[in-house]
């Protein structure tokens, strides 16, 4: 009879290390010039090199190197000035050469980190390494045979390996999400997990709290969504805890996650695992990263999410929640920055953020669009905000103008002028209306005077009706109070 997991977790600590493969968004493959387009007919993106034909030789893709370096810099990794490609040997139908070109003991990047926020607390997860390699093709089992499609073979990948210092499934999922956001932010990968552009293997073990040594680990594969990461890791932790609690031993094995069944099953024993016979690839000279190359990378690196998160709060006074929403997506943050830049003032960040997060995102969501497809450019939103801020239109009218501008693409100012809905803020003009309205409704005036506070709204509404909603609400309120005596 085993105790519940929550009790076991008081005694035992889960230790998780993640290996994430990210497909780099290059147009051609890592070592051959065939295209990398997703979803093409099978085996239509191959050439003699991809097919592993005799006599073919690899030449590395410059852009792949640049994209990988961006990630190295963004994770504060140490970049190796001279790194090497190595051959990793194993036999599998989706690996045409019988070896994968990867990196072994001289990887491109080491000792970086990824900062996560889990349960409101900052956690820095160290990265052992980031290295370059090529992807394999796709093997699909169909009954007694397998079908091989080599379109994916040779697409450049980076492999990001975390130190075994993640301690919960929640953290693991957050690591994935952070990395996902970062690679999209840096525009180095689309990272669409459904397209297999971001894939994760998890190494999971447990040890008694306070123990230094790591327990035997299992490797979890076939995790292809954030939710699966959390479920699979949770499940594995529970599985291991139940075993150790009843005095058993963890087998060193690879387990495949089955999302439908909600459980994992052993794939093969790690002992039988290949000796990969790594050695430096003699077809490829060392990868040299010099000051000039690094200079270019640093110059073109976008401001990272963390830095923007801070800046939005400090410079624009945004709430942490709003700031976090904006930095969750580079396109959102860029839109916000563009809108702020277009705005003549410097202290309108909060208002712009407000309009973005409520009106704009609301409209986009209803349309099933994302910010990149927004029919309203950032400058136009900015212009609308200016109109409201300056009192030219009321906030309420502003919302109507927004809807029309979003739909038609017409500039807000043009709509305002065409519809003649400028806000009336002229006190004299408004006094005239206020006076007329109060005179026209003596019963309600009396009622208000005798203490029926709710009738104030009646008068506000009447003024708005008279002015087609254009009356400045604050001045109206002020003047009404004066006219009604309280």
């Amino acid at each position: 009879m085993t105790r519940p997991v929550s009790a076991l977790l008081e005694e035992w600590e889960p230790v998780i290390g993640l290996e994430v493969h990210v497909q780099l968004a290059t147009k051609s493959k890592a070592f051959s010039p065939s295209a990398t387009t997703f979803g093409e007919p099978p085996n239509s993106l191959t050439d003699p090199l991809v097919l592993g034909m005799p006599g073919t030789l690899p030449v590395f893709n410059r852009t792949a190197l640049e994209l990988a370096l961006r990630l190295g810099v963004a994770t504060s990794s140490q970049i190796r000035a001279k790194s090497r490609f190595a051959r990793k040997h194993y036999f599998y139908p989706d690996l045409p050469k019988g070896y994968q070109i990867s990196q072994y003991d001289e990887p491109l990047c080491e000792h970086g980190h990824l900062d996560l926020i889990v349960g409101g607390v900052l956690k820095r997860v160290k990265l052992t390494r980031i290295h370059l390699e090529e992807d394999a093709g796709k093997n699909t089992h169909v009954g007694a045979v397998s079908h091989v499609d080599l379109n994916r073979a040779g697409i450049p990948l980076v492999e990001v390996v975390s130190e075994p210092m993640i301690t919960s499934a929640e953290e693991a999922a957050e690591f994935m999400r952070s990395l996902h956001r970062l690679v999209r932010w840096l525009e180095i990968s689309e990272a669409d997990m459904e397209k297999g552009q971001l894939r994760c293997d998890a190494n999971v073990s447990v040890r008694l709290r306070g123990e230094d040594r790591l327990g035997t680990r299992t490797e979890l594969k076939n995790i292809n969504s954030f939710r699966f990461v959390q479920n699979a890791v949770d499940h594995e932790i529970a599985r291991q805890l139940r075993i150790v609690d009843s005095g058993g031993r963890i087998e060193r094995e690879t387990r495949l996650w089955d999302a439908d069944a909600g459980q994992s099953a052993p794939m093969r024993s790690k002992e039988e695992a290949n000796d990969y016979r790594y050695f430096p690839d003699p077809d490829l000279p060392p990868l040299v990263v010099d000051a000039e190359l690094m200079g270019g990378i640093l110059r073109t690196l976008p401001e990272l999410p963390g830095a923007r998160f801070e800046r939005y709060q400090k410079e624009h006074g945004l709430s942490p929640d709003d700031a976090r929403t904006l930095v969750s997506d580079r396109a959102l943050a860029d839109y916000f920055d563009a809108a702020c830049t277009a705005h003549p003032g410097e202290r309108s960040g909060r208002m712009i953020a407000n309009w973005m997060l409520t009106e704009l995102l609301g409209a986009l969501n209803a349309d099933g669009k994302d910010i990149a497809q927004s029919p309203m450019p950032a400058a136009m939103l900015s212009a609308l905000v200016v109109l409201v801020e300056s009192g030219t239109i009321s906030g309420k009218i502003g919302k109507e103008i927004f809807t029309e501008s979003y739909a038609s693409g017409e500039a807000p100012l043009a709509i305002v002028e065409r519809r003649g809905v400028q806000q009336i803020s002229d006190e004299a003009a408004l006094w005239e209306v206020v006076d007329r309205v109060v005179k026209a409704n003596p019963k309600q005036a009396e009622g208000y005077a005798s203490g029926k506070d709710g009738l104030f709204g009646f008068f506000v509404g009447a003024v708005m009706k008279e002015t087609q909603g254009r009356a400045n609400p604050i001045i109206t309120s002020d003047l009404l109070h004066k006219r009604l005596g309280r």
Partner: protein
Amino acid sequence: MSEFWTVAETARRVAAGELTAYRLVENVLTRIRNVDRELGAFLEIDLDGARNAASEIERRRTSGEPLGPLAGVPIALKDNLVTKGVATTAGSKILKGWIPPYDATVVEKLRAAGAILVGKTNLDEFGMGSSTERSSYRKTRNPWDASRVPGGSSGGSAAAVAAGLCAASLGTDTGGSIRQPAAFTGVVGLKPTYGRVSRWGVVAFASSLDQVGPLTRTVADAALVLQAIAGHDPRDATSLNAPVPSYSEGLDRGIAGMTIGLPSEYFNHAIDADVRAAIERTMTALKDKGAKLVEVSLPHAELALPAYYIIAPAEASSNLARYDGIRYGKRAEAQDLLDLYRKTRGAGFGPEVKRRIMLGTYTLRSGYYDAYYKKAQQVRALIKRDFDEAFAKVDVILTPTTPTAAFRFGAKVEPLDMYLADVFTLSCNLAGLPGLSVPCGLTAEGLPVGAQLLGRPLDEATLLRVGAVIEATVGLGERRPGGIT
């Protein structure tokens, strides 16, 4: 007889219209038909390709369009050079039936130069061997003595040139596979500096050692063919971005004032008496022509063989991992995937290839890598250092190409015995240096002897210059092989 025209002479006559390319091709094909059944040099003859190339040359010539420097020259290609639309087997059953969809860079270059590519020649399977006995297809004989091997692994290429079946051929050299068969068959064989010639389209044996080079009947011809194939290739990341000089210019400048090194470790080795005598006559001739001969030391020379036989099989075991019959080549019937791999490779590879794959797999295993492969690469650096120090004192190094002349079929049974035949040629590949074998005489039994010249990186021109002197003084002159005619 047109069979023994040089490259230079053939190109000249074709350009002048003295005989048409069609005629030339038919002559070549006839000679091949007559001689090759016994000689066994060719695995594949490209009749259509050759005839089409001849047509194209005649079309250009008659319409006044420029002809390439090798226009009309019949050239054979070792069958580990990939040829588009023409079967390429690398001498192995595992590639039976493979028709490549692309051309090797050297093939493209020869075509562009106007050469007529007559066919693919026999080799030890995947280049692994020193006698061509390891071909899975046929036996190639030495045209000087049909009971003897032509050498290997470029035995077919050497025999074809020696027997006048073509004007020149391309071979590959990983541990001596151009130079040794050149020596055994009395032709000129050149292994360029590593990276001088593109390896794109060369079926890989040992990636850090393989190079393509010419086999010709004269030194001047070797210069012409090297000229056509040398140069940087962006498709080969190991190809050198260095300018290609004119190899023919200055060929007959002579060697007065040059210093030639004689490595004591080589000459202290067991060498056949007739071979030693021929080399000594060569030394005398070189001295007479104004060169200074000095002794040099290459202290790590004896380590070349073990270093090579760790590095080459290791790289080979890796390069041959792609042969599984799944995307091309011969695939065995099998019930499951593991069986498919094991049966295809077990049946498709010959015993020497399997031996080297096993050896390479053994030494690359984790735990063994440091003691074997890494150690061998360190020793390699020491061997290179020896050469660097020697070349500070001398311009070229002279050695016999091989310790003996061509041996008989079946003479080398033990693998180590066969490996020892390469002892003089291996260092050159390990150090990445250029090496040239030039005929320098015959043994008492009438078998050719080769003199080997080793040079500084990218100094093929100097090797060819010295080679020209050897050819003019102690070369075979007009003597032709009489073993198979």
